């Protein structure tokens, strides 16, 4: 059997085992290990397993991940998100659909200190949902805005998905971070327009809330201070080349920690909780990376990624069609699989195709993170939807899953429009990294 056939068989077996709910990381490591044993040698496969897992677990580049997760967890447990929401609420709450707009804006702002999409969705459910419920917002608009807004945390720097993409494709994490800012803001604006249109068509979905004086609005701007300080020092230091990504993350953790302690908003219990949550999330992410590394070594020896890149290069299709097909595959995959796992699994296959077609790897990184953002809100997997469903039970009472998925639909259209805009105008993504790097 040729190495390509072994590779195809390996991929099919892996997809079949995925359906048994076995951990994606374990499956990738197992199939990669067995495949490597078949193609190279049993000894080679055994060594691959130990050396690559240790290599991933001790990689300095990857030290960024637990630190940025910890930064988000501390911010999550110390009330920073509540202050952000309060500011957005004072400015937007009085207009129709304003609370949903405030929620989406807070999600983007919170994304500046938290790189995790489910964490953002979870905290914003706790903070935003009770207010929307109080002002008689319909469940679909309220839950839809929280679940979709949560996905913005994935694009706004720091983003764990972008860090992993950067490491896997050897792209500058600083450049990826800076290129995520404008698309995140574009998507926020699109979400706000979407809420505005929804509430214009059906005013009962998002009635206007309380009005605040100009002085109160200005005073509320202090709620942005914490996030701005942390973002400017941590991410700003990274953009300007003062810090490496790891240093930027560690300084961010220290910043959030100091602010939370000074404000007396982080109890010991909440701090320990943040640490433990970081341990479990980091373990999940790093295991995925280790599994993906083992699997990609197997893929490399099958030569499938190179064969696909050569095959696509030989096709007489315009590059835009090829990129469209790849995005569609990501979209389909995102419906069934966790976005992080999907990206790690497919990058070794699609990245050579993208570079051979002459597309910018930074631009492609942002596009696939946006597609992954669709994955976290589309049925049947839609991680953020389940987060909102689970958290809202304890906050405002049960909301049917169907209602949340229904509420997400207009936001999904906004994401599609956002992707189309970024494909037509790649400058939106690339202008900042081109200016700074």
């Amino acid at each position, binding site marked *: 059997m040729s190495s390509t056939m072994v590779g195809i068989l390996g991929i099919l077996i892996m997809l079949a085992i995925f359906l048994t709910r076995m951990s994606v990381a374990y499956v990738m*490591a197992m199939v990669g290990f067995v495949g490597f044993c078949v193609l190279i040698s049993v000894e080679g496969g055994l060594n691959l397993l130990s050396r690559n897992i240790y290599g991933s677990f001790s990689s300095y580049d990857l030290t960024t991940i637990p630190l940025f997760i910890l930064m988000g967890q501390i911010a999550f447990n110390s009330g920073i998100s509540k202050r952000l929401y309060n500011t957005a609420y004072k400015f937007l709450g009085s207009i129709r659909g304003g609370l949903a707009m405030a929620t989406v804006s807070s999600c983007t702002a919170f994304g500046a200190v938290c790189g995790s999409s489910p964490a953002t969705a979870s905290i914003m459910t706790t903070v935003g949902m009770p207010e929307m419920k109080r002002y008689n917002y319909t469940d679909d608009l309220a839950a839809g805005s929280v679940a979709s807004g949560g996905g913005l945390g994935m694009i706004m720097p720091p983003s764990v998905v972008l860090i992993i993409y950067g490491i896997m494709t050897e792209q500058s994490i600083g450049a990826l971070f800076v290129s995520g800012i404008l698309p995140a803001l574009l998507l926020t604006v699109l979400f706000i327009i979407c809420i505005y249109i929804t509430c214009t068509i059906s005013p009962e979905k998002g009635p206007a809330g309380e009005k605040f004086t100009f002085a109160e609005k200005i005073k509320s701007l202090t709620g942005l201070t914490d996030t701005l300080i942390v973002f400017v020092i941590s991410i700003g230091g990274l953009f300007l080349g003062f810090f490496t990504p790891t240093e930027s993350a560690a300084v961010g953790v220290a910043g959030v920690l100091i602010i939370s302690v000074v404000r007396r908003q982080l109890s010991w219990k909440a701090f320990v909780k943040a640490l433990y949550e970081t341990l479990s999330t980091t373990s999940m992410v790093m295991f995925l990376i280790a599994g993906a590394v083992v699997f990609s070594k197997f893929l490399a020896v099958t030569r499938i990624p190179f064969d696909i890149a050569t095959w696509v290069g030989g096709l007489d299709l315009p590059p835009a069609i090829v990129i469209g097909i790849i995005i569609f595959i990501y979209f389909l995959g995102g419906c069934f699989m966790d976005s992080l796992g999907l990206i790690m699994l497919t990058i070794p296959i699609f990245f050579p195709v993208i570079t051979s077609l002459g597309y910018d790897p930074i631009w492609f990184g942002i596009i696939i993170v946006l597609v992954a953002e669709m994955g976290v809100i589309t049925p049947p997997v839609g991680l953020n939807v389940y987060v909102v469903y689970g958290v809202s039970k304890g906050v405002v009472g049960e909301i049917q899953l169907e209602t949340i998925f229904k509420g997400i639909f207009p936001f999904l259209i906004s994401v599609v429009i956002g992707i189309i805009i970024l494909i037509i105008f790649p400058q939106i993504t690339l202008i900042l990294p081109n200016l700074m790097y």
Partner: protein
Amino acid sequence: MKQIWSFFDRLETKMRALGAFCLMAMVAVTCSDVIGRAFGVPIFGSEEIVSFLLTLVLALSLPYAHREKVHVGVEILFRLFSAPVRVLLSLITNIFSLALIIIITVMMFQYAASMRESGEVSMNLEYPEYTIIFALSFCFFILNFFILRDILTLFRFKESIRHFTNEEGDE
């Protein structure tokens, strides 16, 4: 048997606490290095220290992450199966997971032993890296017991079927 599992649970709690300490140590070392660098006195080998701490963070959180069931899996088809089929599938996948982790444990131990024999040390601090790999191997060894416990629990078919039926109800 209960006493054995209770010992592993206590061990996991201690490992988790130590992992959290290593995580904060990563922050402390990196920040100290940044501040030190500003004054011309950076911490020598800080990158290596932070990398070793990362390995310890991950190693020490292995049993906790398994216990919390954080590792992502594809649920879509699994949810459609009846409770007995779910039990059977979970049993099979857990046995495969255990086999994989046993292989990793053994290979990691052998890797550490070979590093010790060769006398390999880290580039800057000249720290014997095998100690960290032995620690990682030990933590994988502990993880085996947590997976084994899941397998043994699944063998209590009636209880497991009830558990999966309740899970179905929750959805």
